[in-house]
């Protein structure tokens, strides 16, 4: 039919009719108006009258013939969405399972990270007075450090000052760390690390005792409260209360209480708590606690504020205490004291001397970002897959629209489908947690910080909120775009099968997602490869001294000579030496060195070691100049030291030969003479720069013996060491470890290794998910082009050409992803490596390896689909069935 456009009707009226009358009557009404207007063409006031009639149509026909459609969230519609979703998932089981596998894996990982952070966030919330408890931490520059740094600790006397001088403080608690040693009861001697605390500890904090009286448990000197696990180790079924234990080198303690639980969610390391009074009963300790700069490293100040007291007011008063009570002493300067609510300790500012099990806020953000990225990859997967098979769904959408569905209905239905997939995935993810959580807890940054993820969820209603919220967020993220995209189809196009095919926005979006997914995967992969190589470099790194065949034995309080004489008798032992600290394992003892006459600012930090005369020989160190320190020590010789090259360099003492006999200052004022110069070796883990080292000959300070065993005699040699230790009749069993094993288990090395395991796992997951998505899109693509491929084949195309044809698009996308992600990954990896003084330099090999891994997996995914299509017999596909 034709629509002559020489209509004389007012255009506004035509527009109004078209806009406000139901579409079913628009044609009829417009025709009527035209006809009426023609009839009245020569009558007076025709124009006014046609307006009158036109508007009357609007008045009566405003959406009059609209069929009442169901509210998009009515129960009937919800039921419909549910059934349609189930049917669609069943019919497209392959697509659904790709989505569910990807989503559930990434959701499981993300859930672990979220739960871990949530658990850290909820620490110490259980105390009845949690919102009134504060801790004071300090901003402090010590004489050992160049700059000020934050410490979780504060001067011991601060608590007393707060109690007397600061209004609004109801109660204060002294807590002190460093209660350690071997705790002995009968035949059982176990190493123990615990706290000292005031009697008010149990009043301010809500830790319950299952035995003993909380009010008096920490009143007397020599009282100790144990955790249930510790009490079990010492006393088994016996009643621990009133039993006397001794701490080697300290005093005797009477058990006055046992804590109710082992697993309080708290920042306090609660193995053993001794009464603060026992610390004060020792005159030398008491003197030390009185000096603010001496007590600041291990004393914690907690306070319970009166209800209604503002932290800011307390903060101002506490800050006001500094000039009068904590004035600078020598190089010790207290810059600030900060009052911090108890709940802010966990996930708070990173600082030194922290109480123990604590996750700094920055680490939490890092983990959350990881969780978000891995979730996004899975969501992108969902979007890509759903959009790519929109052609299959477009007909369904068209038919629905023809039968009266509105856009809200269609988009609700697709969103509902996503919600269903998300719910299925989260259920599987929660099941997966059962296996993943133990693996996660095995990571050193979890297990060694006492922050094990707890799987006991009974009674934690908030957790279900987390699950539900998490599921909905994931569903909305994944389902938003597909719902929008699919509900946009026009019924006519959709039914004709025209929608979704063309390279419209859906196709661009899909390609963009593939690029983003692969870029993310590649960044993860490259980072993981770099981390693996750095960790391996650190574990197998050349430290510059002999480690193979060396077994390090902790001496405790055994005199070094006594043990050396015993163990040397073994036929398997080739040499024995002694050291105060084993190098490269993370512990060190600082000392400041300078040339005579230099100012304070020219001080250089070095590390000191006590050694015996055998060390250089035993560990295979190289003496560049001078002589070894001999056992025949005279009074002057105790002031002689062996140093390393770096010390000469930092103090400007010239070449090794020139430096022998030079004098410099170590510590505050001690003048020492250089007896010999050692070639540099790493006495620290490889994340740190080479530092000046000083070796003093001090046989009475040796804490460790390095026993060198004959090659291939490790087993027998270690048995001999054990026998030698037993023969001395020491109550403790022998504590020894092969040097190589110790290096491997060094904290920094372990952290690096576990970081790359975590990142590597996530990289693996990201690649898997991306390739699953690629597999889905590729298979769909091939399915759509079956005819085309068959015809090409009949006309003579060979398999190779066809595979190339079908893979070309994906290869271009992956190529773009590579170009985009390479520089980012490069920057990221190098930033991470900046934290290590000795590091690998990632070259083309590293990038190539990552790219190779990615391409292999991607090519397998695409190739499996394209090969299948290219190899199929064309006749099967060209037959009409």
């Amino acid at each position, binding site marked *: 039919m034709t629509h002559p456009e020489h209509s004389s009707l007012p255009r506004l009226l035509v527009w109004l009719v078209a806009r406000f009358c139901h579409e079913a*009557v628009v044609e009829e009404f417009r025709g009527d108006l035209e006809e009426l207007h023609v009839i009245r063409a020569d009558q007076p006031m025709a124009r006014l009258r046609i307006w009158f009639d036109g508007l009357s149509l609007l008045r009566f026909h405003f959406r009059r013939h609209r069929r009442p459609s169901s509210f998009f969230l009515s129960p009937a519609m919800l039921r419909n969405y549910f059934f349609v979703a189930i049917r669609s998932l069943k019919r497209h089981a392959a697509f659904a399972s790709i989505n569910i596998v990807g989503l559930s894996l990434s959701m499981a990982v993300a859930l672990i990270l979220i739960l871990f952070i949530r658990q850290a966030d909820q620490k110490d919330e259980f105390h009845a007075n949690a919102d009134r408890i504060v801790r004071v931490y300090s901003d402090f520059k010590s004489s050992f450090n160049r700059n000020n740094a934050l410490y979780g600790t504060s001067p011991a006397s601060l608590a007393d000052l707060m109690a007397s001088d600061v209004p609004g403080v109801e109660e204060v608690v002294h807590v002190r760390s460093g209660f350690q040693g071997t705790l002995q009861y009968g035949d059982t001697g176990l190493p123990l690390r615990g706290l000292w605390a005031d009697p008010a500890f149990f009043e301010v904090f809500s830790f319950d005792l299952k035995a003993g009286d909380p009010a008096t448990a920490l009143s007397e000197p020599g009282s100790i409260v144990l955790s249930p696990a510790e009490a079990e180790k010492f006393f088994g079924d016996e009643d621990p209360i009133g039993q006397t234990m001794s701490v080697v080198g300290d005093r005797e303690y009477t058990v006055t209480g046992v804590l109710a639980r082992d697993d309080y969610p708290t920042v306090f390391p609660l193995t053993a708590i001794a009464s603060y009074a026992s610390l004060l009963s020792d005159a030398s300790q008491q003197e030390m606690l009185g000096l603010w700069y001496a007590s600041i490293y291990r004393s914690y100040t907690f306070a319970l504020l009166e209800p209604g007291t503002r932290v800011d007011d307390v903060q101002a008063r506490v800050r006001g205490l500094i000039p009068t009570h904590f004035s600078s002493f020598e190089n010790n300067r207290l810059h600030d004291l900060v009052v911090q609510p108890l709940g802010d300790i966990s996930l708070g500012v990173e600082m030194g001397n922290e109480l123990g099990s604590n996750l700094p806020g920055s680490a939490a953000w890092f983990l959350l970002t990881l969780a978000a990225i891995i979730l996004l990859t899975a969501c992108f997967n969902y979007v890509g897959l759903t959009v790519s098979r929109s052609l299959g769904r477009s007909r369904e959408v068209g038919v629905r629209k023809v039968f009266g569905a509105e856009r809200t209905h269609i988009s609700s239905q697709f969103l509902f489908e996503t919600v269903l997939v998300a719910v299925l995935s989260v259920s599987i993810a929660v099941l997966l947690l059962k296996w993943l959580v133990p693996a996660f807890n095995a990571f050193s940054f979890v297990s060694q910080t006492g922050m094990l993820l707890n799987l006991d969820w009974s009674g934690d209603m908030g957790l279900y909120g987390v699950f539900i919220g998490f599921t909905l967020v994931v569903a909305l993220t994944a389902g938003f775009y597909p719902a929008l995209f699919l509900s946009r189809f026009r019924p006519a196009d959709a039914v004709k099968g025209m929608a979704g095919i063309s390279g419209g926005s859906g196709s661009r979006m899909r390609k963009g997602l593939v690029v983003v997914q692969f870029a993310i995967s590649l960044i993860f992969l490259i980072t993981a490869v770099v981390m693996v190589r750095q960790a391996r470099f650190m574990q197998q790194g050349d430290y510059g001294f002999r480690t193979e065949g060396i077994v390090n034995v902790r001496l405790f309080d055994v005199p070094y000579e006594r043990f050396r004489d015993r163990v040397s008798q073994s036929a398997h032992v080739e040499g024995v030496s002694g050291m105060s600290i084993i190098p490269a394992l993370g512990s060190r003892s600082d000392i400041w060195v300078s040339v005579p006459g230099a100012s304070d600012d020219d001080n250089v930090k070095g590390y000191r070691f006590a050694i015996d005369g055998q060390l250089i020989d035993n560990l295979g160190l190289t003496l560049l100049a001078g002589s070894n320190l001999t056992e025949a020590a005279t009074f002057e010789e105790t002031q002689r030291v062996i140093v390393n090259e770096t010390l000469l360099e930092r103090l400007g003492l010239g070449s090794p030969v020139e430096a022998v006999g030079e004098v410099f200052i170590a510590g505050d004022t001690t003048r020492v003479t250089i007896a010999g110069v050692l070639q540099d070796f790493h006495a620290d883990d490889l994340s740190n720069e080479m530092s000046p080292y000083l070796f003093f000959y001090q046989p009475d300070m040796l804490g460790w013996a390095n026993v060198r065993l004959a090659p291939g005699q490790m087993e027998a040699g270690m048995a001999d060491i054990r026998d030698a230790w037993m023969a001395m009749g020491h109550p403790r069993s022998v504590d020894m470890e092969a040097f190589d094993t110790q290096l491997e288990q060094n904290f920094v090395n372990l952290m690096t290794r576990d970081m790359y395991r975590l990142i590597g796992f996530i990289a693996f997951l990201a690649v898997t998910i991306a390739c699953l998505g690629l597999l889905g899109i590729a298979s769909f693509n091939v399915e759509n082009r079956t005819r085309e491929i068959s015809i090409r084949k009949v006309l003579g195309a060979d398999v190779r050409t066809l595979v190339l044809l079908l893979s070309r698009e994906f290869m271009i996308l992956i190529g773009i992803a590579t170009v985009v992600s390479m520089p980012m990954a490069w920057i990221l990896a190098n930033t991470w490596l900046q934290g290590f003084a000795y590091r690998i330099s990632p070259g083309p090999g590293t990038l190539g390896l990552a790219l190779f891994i990615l391409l292999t997996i991607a090519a397998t995914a695409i190739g499996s689909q394209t090969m299948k299509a290219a190899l199929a017999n064309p006749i099967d596909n060209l037959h009409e069935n």
Partner: protein
Amino acid sequence: MARTLICCNFVKVIAVRGHIPSRFLPMSAPEQLGNLEELVLLTVCALGTDAYGVSVHQHLAEVSGRAVSLGAIHTTLYRLQDKGFLESEMGGSSPTRGGRRKRLFRATGAGLDAVRAARAVRDRLWEGMPSPQPNLRFS
């Protein structure tokens, strides 16, 4: 009373938008013809196969001299169709309509019964009317 009416209207409006199933709506009274409805229905019958918006509008205006708006005519037509007195289909177009088709209405059996019943009522009333004075003047 006024309040109930408002409530009913309110409920109806919501019902049209689909929130309330029709079974909860107030029952409508048995179908009866209103004044305009009767005139329109009769017009449709009179016009035979060519009854649509404009023709009904024009015919009614000619016969009765009443100017009714086109909207009122359409409302009535559709209401009669809803009541089952009329049926319709889209019919032929003409150049004066700009090539657009028209909706042609036709009385159903029920519609014919309804006009007949209405006429019967009037006839019965007319029977009781006193006969007028015969006009004997011829001219």
